[in-house]
């Protein structure tokens, strides 16, 4: 899967896992903040949901929730991290 495809896939999964009823994948911009007052406005429970999503869908384990927040900053960061981990594993 190339980077663009991966990013689209992440968006689809986020919408599924968080049940974002009023979002389509194209509504989530690659550099849109996922947490905080702007962007998707997700909260701490969502971050735990996304950590589970990374494990179930991309086989990536994050043991420290604080690391999770950095990786889950936006779609770009998530895609980079998934690619990096997959590269290392190869």
């Amino acid at each position, binding site marked *: 899967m190339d980077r663009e495809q991966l990013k689209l896939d992440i968006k689809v999964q986020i919408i599924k896992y968080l049940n974002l009823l009023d979002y389509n994948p194209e509504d989530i911009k690659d550099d849109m903040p996922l947490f905080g007052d702007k962007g998707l406005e997700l*909260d*701490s*429970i969502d971050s*735990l949901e996304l950590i*589970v999503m990374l494990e179930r869908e991309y086989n990536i384990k994050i043991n420290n*929730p604080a690391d999770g927040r950095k990786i889950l900053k936006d779609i770009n960061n998530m895609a980079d991290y998934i690619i990096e981990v997959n590269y290392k594993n190869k």
Partner: protein
Amino acid sequence: MNIYVTGIGCVSSIGNNVIDNIKSLREKITGLKKPIFFDSKYASEFYFGEVNIDNSSLIKELGLKNEKGLTRTDLLSMKAFDEAVRCANLSEKEISSIDTAFISASTVGGMCMTDQLYNDANLISNTKDFLSSYSCSAHTMKICKKYQMKGISDTINTACSSSANSIMFGSKLIRSGLVKRAIVGGVDSLAKYTVNGFNSLQILSKDRCTPFDINRKGLNIGEGAAYLIIESEDVIKDKTCLAKISGYGNSNDAFHASSMSDNAIGITKAIINAIDIAGIKPDDIDYINAHGTGTLNNDFVELVGLKNVFNNNIPPFSSTKSYTGHTLGAAGAIEGIYSIFSLLHGELYPNLNFKTPIPDFNLSPITKNIQNANIKFVMSNSYGFSGNCTSLIFERINNVY
């Protein structure tokens, strides 16, 4: 209208009855260990406060051999209930009277049978024994049936403040004159359901919990049950009274589903309301049995709340969850009974495993067993998910000795 505690019953990981609980508290013996009876993937990974008796022994002890569908939650609650009514010398007639309320609490109820519930809910079970055992109220109904209790009966579920709220509701029922006495408390038993739930929130500690320590890593889940018999001054006559319930307060933090606000709005308001009902001043509180779960969020915010109310004169405090673990729906009642021990015996129980204070406050809980303490008012705090905050105030009765 004064409300007196005339009986107590308690089962936890540090003792199967009231006396054994006191002994463990005095001797600093923790109940937190790898569980023997609890079946879960996490049994070997985390520490738990497991009650040291198996279900079949409980059934034997309670003389319930022929009953079907009993869960560990039912059995623990019946054990503590029986001890409390014996302690208060309540007759069967008094227990079943329309003037006696029974207010219990639980968060997991019969869902401690997580696998059986899965089978029943998905229609793949080969037994029908447990169909009416799962609800939070199932244990209350079974006790009501056993004693043919006719009066006001209730089960409260406000997550981890549940049994503090059952004590509060029972007290209000007596104060309003609707009943003359109430049996109040709660129960929870170890369950895959709750252990996996708390684990999914990443707030379970792999070590024994260290409430109020800078390096605290989360909570340990415990189990247990506790009931108090509380009676109106009109009916106690010459009974031995253990303590008075002087104050209670509840407030919602209105901040987050599973964590507390940084400025401790709910905690502060619950404490102020309880002090107000008791008709005392913050300075009158001599000791606080804190909620102190050992999670990053709870212990920090609880100290903020104490600062808000007591400024720089925070009374001695400790969390006995370092002995029992977090017994969830039973915690408020178990810790209420520990508060009564403190008043009865003039002793304060230490917060185990504490080393270094949180720098923002530089506040240390009690770490040694303190004897001969002259204490009149003890406050017990309980906080639950969905922002539910409750504080109770127990008062010493002078003529008890």
